[in-house]
Each structure stands twice: as C-alpha cells, then as structure tokens.
C-alpha cells in the first residue's frame, strides 16, 4: 500500500512537472506583463511540432531537438510580440482574450494544414523509456527525466528573475512602465524578451510533453484549461506559486484517477474551487 502511494506520488510529481513547464510561460506573460495570452497552448504545440519534424524528417536526436524547440518558439514569440501582441498591451482584457483566442484558431488551422489532423508519432530514445528501480520503487525513466528538467528550469528562472539585472528590469517595467523608461530601461526590449522567454518555455514544455500528452492540432484547446488552472491556482507571475500549484494539481489528478477512477477527472476541478475560495488571488498571488 505504501509502495502504491509512493508510486502515485511520483507519477503526480512528474505530471505536475510537465504542467509546470508549459504553464510557467503563461504565468510569466499573464503575471509579469498583464497580458491574457490564451494562445499560449499554440506555442507549446509549435514546440512539439518542431521537435517531431526535427526528429522524424531530419534525424536530429530527441535531446537535441529540445533546445531547437525552445529557440524556434522563442523566435516566433518575439516576432508575434513585435508585430501583434504589443499593440494590445494597453487594451482591455476582453480584447486581449478575443485576440489571442483568434490567434489560437488560426494556429490550429495552420498546423492542420502543414502537419495534418492526426496524432504525431514520436519514439523516445531507448535510454529514456522503460522503468528503473529507485529505492524499491519502479519509476518511469522519462518521468524521472521530466522532474530533473523542472528542477533545473525552476532554479534558472528564480535566479534570472530575482538575481540578475534583467530580472530587476522586468520587475521594474511591470510595476511602473513610465518610471522604468525614465530611468533608461528599454521597456519594449524587456517585454519582447520576456515574451520570448515565456513562449520558449511553452515550446520546450510542448516538446517534452509529446510522449505524455500527445500532439495533434487540437492540442492548444485540449490543454488550455489545465494551463489556466495552474496559473489561476498558483497566482499569475509567481514562479514558486506556479510550481506549487502544478505539483499539487498533478498529484491530486493522478491520485484521484488511481484511487477513485469514476470521479478521478473531476478531482482537480473540485480542488481548484476549494483553493480559490481560500486563496482568491492564487497561492502566491500578489495581494494588489
């Protein structure tokens, strides 16, 4: 029984890690830039497609496709931010939502046109598939790998936002754009880079997620609720909050499905309601 419980816990953490990887980008754009970007899932899907194309058509090894996915989606993010998104920074949230959902529909149609409507097959390298015995517990190698990536990404992000000059510029630009610009911070550049970072992380998450979540053009809509849930529960803009929320939701989702399969899919929604009643601004949300 203890073994089962630890197994469920491990799977939950791994699943939560994946939710975190994809959700963190959304948290960054929503929390730091105050932009409701529902097209976030489309960036994740694009990262996935970049991985698949690089792997299946160009023979690039799986691990090497991940940085490519990050860079490609980050670039896409910059281009779209400069040409489209930046026009809506001052718009109402409704306009932002309408714009980004429209963009998502276009992305879905575009992906269907290029890659077709079906599921994209990927085959992971042998060393990442199967299970290993870790302290008496059989755990999936790929899930272990996901958790490892999340540890690295989280550490890097916290360092970037809290300790570097760029992080300070981001925080300053968010709090007061005019004052920051007056102090010589190039706010446009900071926002473009932040947006690129968020998109790139989504792309990375999309690439890592193919094996667990699958990949077809409906991906942005299928998982939108999960990403929004993570950000809403965690508190937009908070790295720590997003991580905790993703892990909690991941663990409860897996545990719900394992122990009570009939209502399993509903558990995370119930949890969301409860958490938001007690923490209306999210677990680590800004009180303002």
């Amino acid at each position: 029984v203890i073994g089962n419980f630890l197994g469920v816990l491990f799977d939950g953490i791994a699943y939560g890690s994946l939710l975190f990887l994809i959700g963190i980008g959304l948290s960054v754009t929503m929390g730091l830039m105050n932009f409701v970007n529902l097209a976030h899932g489309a960036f994740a899907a694009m990262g996935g497609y970049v991985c698949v194309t690089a792997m299946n058509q160009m023979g690039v090894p799986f691990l090497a496709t991940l940085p490519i996915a990050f860079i490609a989606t980050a670039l896409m993010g910059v281009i779209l931010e400069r040409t489209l998104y930046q026009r809506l920074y001052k718009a109402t949230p409704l306009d932002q939502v309408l714009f980004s959902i429209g963009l998502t529909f276009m992305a879905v149609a575009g992906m269907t046109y290029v890659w077709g409507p079906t599921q994209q097959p990927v085959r992971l390298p042998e060393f990442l598939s199967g299970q290993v015995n870790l302290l008496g517990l059989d755990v999936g190698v790929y899930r272990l790998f996901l958790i490892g990536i999340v540890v690295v990404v989280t550490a890097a992000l916290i360092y970037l936002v809290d300790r570097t000059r760029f992080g300070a510029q981001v925080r300053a630009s968010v709090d007061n754009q005019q004052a920051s610009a007056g102090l010589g911070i190039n706010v446009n550049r900071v926002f473009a880079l932040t947006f690129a970072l968020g998109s790139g992380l989504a792309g990375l998450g999309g690439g890592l997620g193919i094996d667990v979540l699958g990949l077809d053009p409906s991906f942005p809509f299928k998982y939108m609720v999960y990403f929004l849930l993570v950000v809403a529960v965690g508190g937009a803009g908070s790295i720590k909050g997003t991580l905790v929320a993703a892990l909690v939701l991941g663990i409860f989702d897996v545990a719900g499905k394992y122990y009570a399969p009939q209502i399993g899919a509903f558990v995370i929604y119930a949890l969301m309601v409860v958490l938001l009643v007690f923490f209306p601004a999210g677990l680590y949300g800004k009180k303002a």
Partner: protein
Amino acid sequence: MALGLSATSQAAEPIKIGLLTPYSGPFADMGRLIDAGVKAYVKANGDTVAGRKIEIITRDTTGPAPEVGKRLAQELVVRDNVDFLMVGGFTPETLTAGTVASAAKKPLLVVNASSSNITDKIPFGVRYAFSFRQITQPLGVWAAKNGNKKMMTLVADYGPGIDCENAFKDGFTSNGGTIVESVRTPLKSPEFGPFIQKVKDAKPDGLFVWVPQGDQALNVVKTYYERGLDKAGIKLVILGDDIDEPVFHALGDKVKGLVTSLHYSTAHATAENKKFLKAFGEVTGNAIQPNFMSVAAYDGMAAIYEAVKRQNGDLSDGAKTLDILSNLQFESPRGKIVIDPKTRDITQAVYIRRVETHNGKLENVEFETIPDVKP
C-alpha cells in the same frame, strides 16, 4: 465540391450518391479513408452501371455533429435530388441524416457508425459497417479460452466504451472467466498512467482495453509497455481499431504478439482483398493505408451497384431499392458479409489477430476466425 465523374454523353440522368463524412477537423483522416474507399470501388468497377453514370456528391460533416448531418442530408435530398445517402460518420449525425433519408424514402447506407441497433432508428438505413458489440464479444470468448481466468477491463466512459465493456464481459464470463474490476476512463483523459498503474497493482491475468482511436489509443498502449505490464505477465487484448499504423510507428517491434479483434485486416489473404488493395493504392497513390472504414465504404458502393443493376437503372421506387440493399450477401475484402433483412444490419466474420511482421512490416495477422457473428 462535386467530384463529378465527367459525363460525356448524357444518355440518362446520372445516379447520384450523397457521401457524408468528415473532410476537415480532427477526424479528417476518417473522411479521407472513407472517401478513398468509395473511389477505389469506382476505380475497380467502372463509373457506369446499367447505362447510368455514377456521380458522387461529397459533403463535409466536420465530426460528430448531428445538426450538420441533418442540414447536409436535407440539401442533398431536396436540392441535389440524390438517389442514395452514404454516411461515413459517427452515430449522432448518422441518426439525424437517417431521419431525413427515411422521410424522403431514400436508402441510407451506414458505413461507419457502430453503436448497437442503429438501423432500428433509421427505417431506410442499412448497415455495411460493424457494431462494437459484434467485434468485442468474440474477443471475450477467445480470452477466456486462452488461459485468462481473471481479467480487468478499461474503456472510455461513454456510449461505445460501455457497449464494449458489456460485450467483452458477456463473452468472457459466459466462458468461465471473471472480471475483477472494470475501469472507465474519462473521455478527455490526457494521462493513462494512474489507470494502468492500478491494473498493474491488481495483478489480473489480462486486460481488455478500448478507447477512441488516435492519441488515446496510442497513449494507453504506450503506457502499458512503459509501466512494464507485459513483463509482469498481464496480457493485453484490445479492439483492432485501436492498433494500426500510428501505433506501429510509435512503438515498433514492442507491440509484436499483441492480440486484437476486428472484422478486417489488410493482411486478409483473398482475391477480393487484393483487388481492393490494388484499387485503393491507385486512387491514393499509395499515400495512405486503407482500414476497415475504407472497406465499409467500398462494400457500400458494391451494394449500390448491385441494387442499380437488379433494377436496370430504374431507382424510382425507394422502398424496392431498400429491400434489395437489405437482402444482399456477397464476398467483401473482409470476407463474406450478409445483411439480415429483418434488422437491416450486418452479419460477418470477426477475426482474432496478432501483430506480426508480415510482408516486411508490422501487420495485424488473422489467426482465428469466428464466422457469422451477429451485430
């Protein structure tokens, strides 16, 4: 969008067949397979029957959409004045198109929808596809007779999944097996890990699975291997529509030995199937592999050709045409098929297949035949 087969001399009005299937959206692949099945039959048998040209008018249902099915069927019947409707879609739009067809007394051929008793609800409908019950019950019987005493089932929690769960249980328990637990997974289930882990910890002899084709099927099978259920001695049996090209591609040789049941396999070794595969390859330029959906569409066309021939091209009496369509039996690429005139539903052989290397690639190879399975 009419794929009109150009008529040179207009001796008689062409025979019009309205084909409803999803050409766009997440199920566009299904439409492609069904469309190619229809074209393959025309390619192999010519585009003229009893002196009349065959004209196929295609319409896009976009997916499981009852209101779209109804509207398109109305347009086809009223404006295009079609002689037949062929619906290669899901149950909801097949039913709504069926209401229209029956009111207009136009025969409707069901070439994909697989719920039980669908033709009861469509007085002018004839099924040339299959029912989930039909292909699942024999798999339960086979599993019971081949060393499984205690099994678990795992199905998607909606109509067809529950049909499958009951049919498997029926076949399995009536032959001495016990179902220890039935797991139902939410229709939108991104992650099968917890469900499969539950099965692994319960240690049954075997596991029966059916989830919708595509990402879910791929994920559930992948998770089965990833969690080492095969090594733990838990045998997987699964409906054949879940195990096809994408699964082979993603999992490779791992899936060898997997047992499935279905009413068609491309590896079926008959002259009829060879003819079908050849024609299908020609119309698609060998870009896609046919499946059971393509065969049902192909057979639907065969039935239409026969009905036209027997009436010398005179289709003025819809009820008479329906009568012919519901009394047919012939050799299809899948084997012999018989339509029961009482139910207008299909009786056919179901095959138990195993994934093996065949003609240099992975295929579902039939090794046991259960003849004349009722729907």
